[in-house]
């Protein structure tokens, strides 16, 4: 299937338009939900860290340090990807599944269009390209959420938090997070597209394909999260 998905497009300009539509549909439209979740996630990590670090031997800036590393290493790339598996994965599976059961994919085939490439390639490329930006944005908003709500909750000062997020910064953590994000983006788009494309039946089966896509994506993300962590950090 993947060979056909990444075969030469019939008309590059049409695929380019589809690609930008998908960037908007799958990426830009996910911004609000990611921003809200990341902001509160960062805040909760900060407050939990403050709650846990009761020993006077642990410096206060460790709260900022913990919030940064938690967001960068795990929460932004993995948790946000799991959320995107629900939002984007179900969107892709149900869209392509509906096109299958209403014969729109057959119509594409009859016109001589490579339906796999036309429907799936722009989605996979859009996800792989836009998700790293979403995750970087999630990191910033999460750390900002920790700062704003941490300071408002009086668990840390602005100075200590900023010192904490700068303390022992390792740029490889960002590389690690982005590698995970790209792999997860590929899993979300390709697995969901596969389930949508091979839907058979009617509305009920489209719903089932959508559910299956989210479940398989989530499991694969968790498995690959472990494998990539073992490979890159162990």
């Amino acid at each position, binding site marked *: 299937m993947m060979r056909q998905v990444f075969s030469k497009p019939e008309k590059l300009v*049409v695929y380019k338009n589809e690609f930008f539509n998908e960037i908007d549909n799958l990426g830009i439209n996910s911004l609000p939900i990611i921003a809200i979740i990341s902001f509160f996630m960062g805040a909760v990590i900060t407050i939990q860290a403050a709650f846990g670090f009761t020993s006077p031997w642990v410096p206060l800036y460790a709260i900022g340090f913990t919030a940064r590393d938690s967001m960068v290493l795990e929460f932004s790339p993995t948790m946000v990807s799991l959320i995107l598996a629900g939002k984007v994965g179900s969107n892709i599976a149900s869209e392509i599944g509906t096109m299958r059961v209403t*014969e*729109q994919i057959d119509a594409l085939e009859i*016109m*001589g269009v490579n339906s796999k490439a036309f429907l799936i390639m722009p989605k996979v490329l859009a996800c792989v390209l836009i998700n790293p930006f979403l995750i970087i944005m999630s990191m910033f908003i999460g750390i900002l959420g920790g700062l704003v709500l941490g300071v408002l909750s009086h668990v840390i000062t602005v100075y200590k938090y900023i010192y904490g997020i700068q303390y022992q910064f390792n740029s490889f953590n960002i590389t690690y997070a982005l590698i995970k994000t790209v792999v997860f983006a590929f899993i979300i788009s390709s697995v969901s597209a596969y389930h949508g494309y091979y839907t058979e039946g009617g509305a009920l089966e489209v719903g089932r394909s959508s559910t299956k896509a989210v479940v398989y994506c989530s499991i694969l993300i968790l498995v690959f999260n472990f494998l990539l962590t073992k490979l890159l950090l162990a």
Partner: protein
Amino acid sequence: MLELKNINKHFGERHITKEFSCKFEQGKTNLIIGESGSGKTVLLKCMVGLTNVDSGEVLYDGQDFLKMSIKEKQHIRKEMGMLFQGGALFDSKTVEENVTFPLSMFTEMTAEEKAERANFCLSRVNLKNVNNLYPSEISGGMKKRVAIARAIANSPKYLFCDEPNSGLDPKTSILIDKLIKEITLEFNITTIVITHDMNSVMEIGDKVVFICNQQKWWEGTNENILHSDNKELGDFIYVSKFLKELRDKQS
């Protein structure tokens, strides 16, 4: 010209089509009729390669479609237009975008030329001022007409119609039938229509093929179908009391 030779198709143990052979000529509307579930749509899908055939040949101007590579099939498919039962219009595109889609994909036309062609095709199916509407905003009959406009946009050599009248009122059905007939003559296309509507048969059936017991049971024109002494065909045509009485009066 499109020719089918000894087409066989099974779904598991179920035989759908047995040794089906037929020739469909250019510039004629060829109708395939039969009861629901007789395998008409499967046969049509076999012709266009949407369903695999177990054995047999599908010849487009003498070339076997089934033995072609994916690239060759895609090339032949650019010469096909198909009207699906539900229209199969792209939900995310407007009426005009639907009609211009094959042009955008396979021609080097400018935006103005595509818009002009879309307007011509839409006016050909008696549709005006619907260019910017989405499929969800138009009626079932209009959807079918947009689907016809899309099917003829790229000037196809072959037009396939899967039950073009299903779900339409008699007046709109006749309008669609007439459109199919006119377009076939105007563009000299090989048209194949799957139907079980006897109005369509009488209106546009240059050639009629009746499928029964998974086989080609009868073949003729709309002029001699009413006078056929084939029992199964008679049972199919004269199913209503009104038609039976008409036949009795005629005989």
